[in-house]
């Protein structure tokens, strides 16, 4: 029984069923709530939700901006820069730690300590050092994901059997070539897995910071609309964030399949 595969149509049917159940459950909860209080906004009905979507997809009264566009651009830019910086430095630090013993000894204590600091709890530190502008967001995202990424890369490098490295020398490789042609290629898929896993935390850090000091962006909007009890904006925003995270993850998965066709990922 355990692990026995089911047919493809059955699998699709079950997936569709789970989504339908979710929607039906929501509809029922909302319906019950509105029977108690017809003006309820905590579990908005489908028509209320449509109103909310209308609200953030049309130009607002004050600035004439569409919220969803404005927020996506702001949050997207912060996330992209933070992730990019974190990915580059996380990878470099992990590679250097894995390949060069003095770097390993030097960086291991701070990296393992930093990895244990909850970024959301350290928000104040980032405000003090980087203000409340773009630098702060980028710094907190990248510092937030660097330790985990670096440790993953470092451990993946350490996992490479010495035989593989020794053999490269017998094939005429220089030390740098061993790092680029053997270590890098061996580590790459695991690194992409780690990047995929770091997207979640990166979004958490960003939204948390935006909730505290943002004047535009998803975190800011969600906090504001929640205070106004406009859950018909909050829920679609959450769905939008989930969809965005999913797409980003999917993109990295495709990248991994393209760059490392030999690798059988176990975190599909």
């Amino acid at each position: 029984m355990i692990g026995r595969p089911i047919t493809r149509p059955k699998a699709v049917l079950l997936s569709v069923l789970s989504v339908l159940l979710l929607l039906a459950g929501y509809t029922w909860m909302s319906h019950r709530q509105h029977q108690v209080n017809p003006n309820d906004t905590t579990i908005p009905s489908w028509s209320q939700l449509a109103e909310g979507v209308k609200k953030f997809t049309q130009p607002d009264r004050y600035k004439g901006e569409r919220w969803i566009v404005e927020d996506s651009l702001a949050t997207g830019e912060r996330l992209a820069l933070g992730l990019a910086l974190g990915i580059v430095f996380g990878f470099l630090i992990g590679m250097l730690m894995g390949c060069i013993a003095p770097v390993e000894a030097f960086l291991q204590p701070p990296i393992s300590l930093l990895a244990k600091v909850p970024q959301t709890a350290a928000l104040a530190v980032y405000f003090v050092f980087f203000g409340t502008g773009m630098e702060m967001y980028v710094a907190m995202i990248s510092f937030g994901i660097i330790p985990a990424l670096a440790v993953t890369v470092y451990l993946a490098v350490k996992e490479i059997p010495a035989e593989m490295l020794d053999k490269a020398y017998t094939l005429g490789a220089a030390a740098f070539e061993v790092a680029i042609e053997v270590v890098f290629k061996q580590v790459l898929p695991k690194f992409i897995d780690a990047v995929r896993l770091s997207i979640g935390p990166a979004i958490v850090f960003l939204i948390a910071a935006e909730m505290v000091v943002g004047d535009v962006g998803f975190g800011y909007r969600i906090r504001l609309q929640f205070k106004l009890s406009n859950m018909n904006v909050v829920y679609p925003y959450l769905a939008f964030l989930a969809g965005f995270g999913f797409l980003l993850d999917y993109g990295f998965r495709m990248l991994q399949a393209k760059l490392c066709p030999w690798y059988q990922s176990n975190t599909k």
Partner: protein
Amino acid sequence: MNLADPDNFGLQCQGVSHWFGENKVLFDLNLEVQAGQFVGLVGPSGCGKSTLLRAILGTHPPHRGEILTLQNGRLANADRPGRDRGIVYQKYSLYPFLTALDNVALGLKLDQTTTAFRWFNWAGWAKKRREFRDRAGAFLEKVGLGQAMHLYPSQMSGGMQQRVAIAQALIMEPEIILLDEPFGALDEATREELQEMLLRLYEENAEVKAAGGKPPYTLIIVTHELNEAIRVGDRLVGLSQYWDWEADGHEHSPGATVVYDKAVPVFRPDERPEYELFDNIRREIRKHVYNPGVLQRRDEHVSVDPTP
């Protein structure tokens, strides 16, 4: 044998000793291998076969003694791994992220181009790359792996992987190839096929030698299968810690050394191995190399010139 003669030289170990703390492993080991020889290296477990192989490979140089190989036409100390020595491991024999073709072409790429060339001279590299892959492809065809060229190691059987690994080492034309239990994980039939592959190389050696050239393949195969060592090798070297060290004035065992070194019969690749014929050799080796109860003088079974 004339050691200064690069046309004959394969490998020389002189007074090699190695130990790990209190644990004495190799003692005053001397071994000379001529170009074209196929040396089967056997010995009881813990006798330091792997230690010796790693020392020759250069990843773990011995504490005492010298190991010389031919590097760029000159005799030099083998204190680090280099392209003059090839290695075929039992595990991790191929790079999992490269296809069979690219695994074989990797050595050409690493040896003949630099990172700077590959990064900055795109046109030049594209041309070289095609050339290397063509050569690797032709080589794979030759060893009967034309079908497998574009498979990744995880898609290949164990026998195919080892075949590709041997091709990967051979294409570099190293002075000596080290095989560390290369067929240990394979079934009997595959094992014999791969032994035939090695014996065909030995035949090529003979042809080149007959034409007056330097035989292209020299190898040391470490194995725990006596039959394999006898069939593939033309010379059998037994490494053992069981020898009469007290007669040499040692109070404690100083470690393993060469206690057996003789020529063994040469077989053609298509010859069905008649393992009964090996019985005498096997019995002799079991007694003098493997048996802790039989302690003979270290040179009692070491021929001065084990050239077959």
